């Protein structure tokens, strides 16, 4: 199990890095899907099969398909790719890179203090549903409203 965790982690990491340095949008999207699936595997390892399922279906499935449709609409070709290459100059990475390095150091520094081993306990759909439609009902309602708002906004924005 441990091995699976690290393996999936490595995959997620590599594919993610590939996303941000890729110049081709479609390639990047594919890498992103791989990354998401890898994370879904991690979820599974951590005992959250329902979350893993949703990650695969909603994220890697629905959302990414949405991206794909949009990219088809935009019809970005070779010209865009060349443009991307021009934009990705190494010196551009220095400033943000340093800043991010500091941030990462800080985060890791904080996180390593928590030396606890996790024994994954599977939390099934049932418990999740009881919680979701019990104490978190209000959050569910809010989420539904958010989705509605997103729906309306997307419709309005994408309209000619």
């Amino acid at each position, binding site marked *: 199990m441990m091995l699976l965790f690290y393996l999936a982690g490595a995959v997620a990491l590599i594919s993610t890095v590939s996303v941000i340095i890729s110049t081709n*949008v479609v390639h990047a999207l594919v890498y992103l899907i791989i990354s998401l699936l890898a994370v879904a595997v991690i979820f599974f390892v951590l005992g959250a099969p329902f979350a893993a399922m949703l990650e695969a279906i909603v994220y890697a499935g629905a959302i990414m398909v949405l991206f794909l449709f949009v990219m088809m609409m935009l019809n970005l070709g070779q010209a865009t790719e060349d443009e991307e290459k021009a934009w990705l100059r190494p010196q551009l990475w220095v400033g943000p890179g340093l800043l991010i390095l500091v941030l990462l150091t800080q985060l890791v520094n904080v996180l390593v203090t928590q030396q606890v081993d996790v024994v994954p306990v599977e939390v099934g759909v049932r418990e999740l549903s009881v919680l979701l439609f019990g104490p978190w009902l209000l959050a569910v309602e809010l989420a539904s409203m958010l989705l509605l708002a*997103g729906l309306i906004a997307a419709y309005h924005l994408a309209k000619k």
Partner: protein
Amino acid sequence: MPSIPYEHGLILAAILFVCGLIGVLTRRNIVFILMSLEIMLNACGLAFVVGSARWGHADGQIMFLMILTLAAAEVAVGLGLIIQMYRRFHTVDISVLSEMKG
């Protein structure tokens, strides 16, 4: 069942988050920026699920669900905006949107 160190999960989430951040900061193509944002959101979700596993409780997963919803809504709106932007400026370069200069 062999255990997984808690902090490794979190550090993975942190690294993924930071990768997304770099993407947001360095890319000019708005599609890439949106993707990077997805990475960041996903990293957060990962952190929550790790936490959920750590405490053996489902609240973290519920938070992940919320984030998922949020990401869905955000992508829908964000992609709509990208389409609008492309219609108006015929480019996906975020730098053309600098009218808020003081």
